[in-house]
């Protein structure tokens, strides 16, 4: 019994470390001056990309737990989701502070004028309630059905993240299209069985 508890602790620590790895690597590159000639741009892109990757991961966790018979993964879904929130929040902080030096007039104009900024901001705004309601205490207070409904927003947020990425690249849309496809597959894998069930019932 104690060995099983130890194994779980070790597993949990490894998952945590894997989630933090992109951030640790970024800090390491920062201290060794390896953030390219344009560090603000590089860090902004890197954090945004990891936000999108972790969003995809949280969606994949639910599916893998269900269809690949890996229920233990569910234990880490909340943590992966919170790391997605952390990377997106850091991405936003770099955008506000380093890319725009907290020039609120400029940032306001950016949000109003440029669809990819508008979508990015809206996606972050939607992500906040999910992070807030992720703790066990809050979750217990909510009706399971409304909690699940609220957290289904993560699919919309992932789609918005992929669109945000697609709209900001100049010419090479291959990477945004890849992420768009991943989100689409994850969304379809979740929606299709539900739709089939509903059809079967009708």
């Amino acid at each position: 019994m104690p060995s099983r508890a130890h194994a779980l602790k070790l597993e949990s620590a490894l998952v945590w470390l894997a989630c933090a790895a992109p951030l640790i690597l970024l800090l390491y590159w920062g201290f060794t001056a390896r953030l390219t000639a344009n560090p603000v741009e590089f860090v902004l892109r890197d954090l945004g990309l990891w936000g999108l990757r972790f969003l995809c991961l949280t969606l994949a966790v639910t599916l893998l737990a269900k269809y690949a018979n890996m229920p233990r993964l569910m234990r880490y879904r909340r943590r992966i989701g919170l790391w997605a929130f952390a990377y997106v929040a850091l991405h936003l902080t770099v955008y506000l502070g380093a890319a725009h030096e907290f020039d609120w007039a400029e940032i306001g104009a950016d949000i109003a004028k440029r669809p990819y900024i508008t979508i990015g901001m809206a996606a972050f705004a939607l992500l906040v309630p999910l992070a807030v309601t992720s703790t066990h205490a809050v979750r217990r207070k909510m009706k399971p059905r409304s909690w699940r409904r609220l957290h289904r927003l993560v699919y919309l947020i992932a789609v918005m993240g992929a669109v945000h990425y697609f709209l900001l690249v100049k010419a090479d849309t291959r990477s945004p299209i890849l992420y768009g496809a991943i989100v689409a597959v994850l969304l379809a894998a979740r929606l299709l069985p539900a739709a089939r069930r509903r059809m079967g019932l009708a």
Partner: protein
Amino acid sequence: MLIRNAPDLRECDVTDHGLYLKRRAFIAGAAGLGLAACGGAAPASAAPLKYRPNRMAIDESRTPLADVTGYNNFYEFGTGKEDPAAYAKMMRSRPWTITVDGLCERPGSVDIDELIRRFPLEERIYRMRCVEAWSMVIPWVGFPLAALIKSVGPKSNAKYVAFETLHDPRQMPGQRSAVIRWPYREGLRLDEAMNPLVLLAVGLYGQTLPNQNGAPIRLVVPWKYGFKGIKSIVRIRLTDRRPQTSWQMLAPGEYGFYGNVNPDVDHPRWSQAKERRIGEFFRRKTLPFNGYGDQVAHLYRGLDPRKLY
């Protein structure tokens, strides 16, 4: 500012000159023994150039060589900023032939080294403003485009100059995907092209141009966004019609023919009011015509500035 820069540049010039002579002597001697391929003291990829020092210095510090050669856009080698430095060695920039043709009296093709011998080289320290809102200060070595155009005798009906980059996916792996339509194309109005600021650069920091910066010869138009500075040029054509340009073909709503630096006209996806000078944390205000308005604003009198983008 000129005084501060001058000793630095003169010293650099002398050193380069000496090395240059030594190199030539070495190759001349070696050629007789059939050893020319062994090369001189300097690597073929970065040979020193002989040039007249800069006479248009600006009071801004030059961007370090490592940043100039390690961070740029050159989609022929990939769309990442560090791809050019990683993959440009696949290109052979010697021997290299440039064709100058179209509406001129003396069209023809010329070898790059012959071209460099024909026109005296000079250094120009210019700001380089990328359309992505970052900028550098780069000491180019080259000769005015006007000198080349004059030498071929443009006909009176020539109104534009069209440029083309090498198209060879074996040497330029980025051309294997159709991110933009190859070859890369750029153009200038003839009167813009004849402006003395416009440089055909064959070097930077006193050495021959590194492949990733557009070896062996590239265009530098300091009052326009960087995408106008076409690299690794194989053809220059005089024409009576406005040439198509690569970025305009790709996204006409985002890139115009002129591409003049203008802080008041945003790119649809970001503001152009400020720029991040590479090496600095806080952004600078972008200057109209990238600070070269005194020399070029007269070219655009009577034109709508929104169309000048």
